């Protein structure tokens, strides 16, 4: 049922209605461009061998928002963001970014395993410069952008050190900075805090929120920690066991900047509890 579409134009002036007041063209466009949607996923299929993970999976990722992905172990959270970000292929269906394909879109990805994601033969600063080099940005402009990012992150790191001379939290900070320096349209993060201690996690999610508030980058983050997932998110995408479906898409609308005390906010507590209930229902053995 995956229908191959020519890339539809974004909706502009409403096209003429037909005799019954319906407008198939507009409906088709709205199917691909629901208002405020950045990434549209339609009819996505993915199987590993005989195991079906996704079948006819539809999803809208909102624009300029942080969407957390939460679900049982092995339900396909990483698989989902890896397919969207082009790290692994999918068997069927379509994924569009504002109607554009992945190759026409600037995305960045933060890996869980920062130790293996950084290039240890380059200094931290050169790791951050590298994606800009790939894009052919001239040296002076590169330096300007990297300096501005370092300023805005405001973390005490020796950027001339090699990655293996830094702590885990500092390495993951470098990874996040490397991902942000290109000013991506979408930022994907797969369990970015899972190898960090609690203090570093608080600092990192605060910095991410700060950048998000400055730039409004669409972000999609997988998290194993419900508190992190809710704290950062505008929406929490809850997934079921395999074959994976959407269990719920929960909104969390607390004002930003959120602080350490947000976690005791009644609305936060309510949303977290709601997510936990759905998670327990979905994760329990059927």
């Amino acid at each position: 049922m995956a229908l191959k579409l020519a890339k539809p134009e974004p909706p502009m002036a409403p096209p003429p209605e037909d005799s019954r007041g319906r407008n198939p063209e507009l409906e088709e466009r709205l199917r691909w461009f629901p208002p405020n949607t950045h990434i549209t996923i339609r009819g996505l299929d993915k199987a590993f061998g005989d195991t079906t993970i996704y079948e006819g999976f539809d999803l809208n990722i909102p624009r300029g928002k942080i969407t957390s992905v939460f679900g049982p172990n092995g339900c396909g959270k990483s698989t989902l963001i890896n397919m969207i970000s082009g790290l692994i292929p999918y068997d069927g269906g379509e994924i569009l970014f504002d109607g554009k394909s992945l190759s026409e879109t600037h995305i960045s990805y933060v890996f869980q395993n920062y130790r293996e994601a950084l290039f240890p033969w380059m200094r931290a600063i050169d790791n951050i410069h590298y994606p800009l080099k790939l894009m052919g940005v001239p040296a002076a402009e590169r330096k300007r952008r990297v300096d501005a990012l370092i300023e805005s992150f405001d973390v005490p790191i020796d950027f001339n050190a090699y990655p293996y001379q830094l702590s885990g939290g500092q390495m993951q900070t470098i990874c996040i900075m490397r991902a942000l320096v290109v000013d991506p349209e979408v930022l994907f993060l797969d369990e970015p805090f899972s190898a960090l201690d609690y203090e570093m996690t608080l600092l990192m999610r605060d910095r991410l929120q700060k950048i998000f508030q400055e730039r409004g980058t669409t972000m999609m983050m997988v998290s194993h920690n419900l508190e992190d997932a809710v704290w950062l998110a505008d929406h929490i995408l809850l997934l079921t066991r395999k074959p994976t479906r959407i269990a719920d898409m929960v909104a969390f609308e607390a004002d930003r900047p959120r602080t350490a005390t947000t976690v005791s906010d009644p609305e936060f507590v309510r949303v977290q509890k709601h997510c936990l209930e759905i998670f327990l229902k979905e994760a329990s053995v059927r």
Partner: protein
Amino acid sequence: MNAIERSIQSAKPLWGVLGLLAVWWLVWKIKVADPVLLPSPQATMFSLWSGMTDGSLWHDFVATVRLTTVSFLLAAVIAIPLGIFLGSSVPLYRSVEFIIDFFRSTPASALFPLFLVLFGTGDLSKILVTAFGAGLVILFNVAYGVMNARQTRLLAAKVMGANKLQTLRDVMFWESLPQTFIGLRNGISLALVIVIVAEMFIGSTEGLGHRLVEAQMLFRMPEMYAAIFAAGALGYGLNWSSVMIEKRIVHWGGK
């Protein structure tokens, strides 16, 4: 720890050497072995010293160093790019793996006659047969280094928009360096072995191998022992230098 203790600590490797010399001297002194076959340590050291200073041993030493270095560099210059190229495609490497493993397992000395027929008895034959043997060892290690590159790093480069060539140059090459250096270290040791054997058997007029055979035929035992020690020192020195160079370049290794 005071200065004296520290110098005793750092002199530890010397103890073994002194012990060996003492045993050797004792064996020579009580004449367990025929003194013609086993000269005294003093006579051997003197032969080593005089051979190095009067230029005869030194000349052969330099000749061997030259052949080994030239062959090794030739091997490295060809094997490293080729290894990266082959390793970057697993199916490609699998298709040539048997040939590489086969010739890697073939003793280089078994190829001497072939290279002699093809390239004559000059240095060219020795250089080529040595480069062939050492090159295969380097090639195999480089290709494995590339094939075992960390998946996350390759994905990171891909998602940052690196094309195939940039990934090869900026990631795979560096990822394979630790394994490449293992290949280079094995390669240079093997190169020295092949060069010395080649100097023994492929009509040579110089080199440590040639000197060893000549000393043996003329029964000049101190000279022969001196040449053995010179060869040992050369092998040790080459290995030590490659470890030092590796530490400088692959500074992230094992971290």
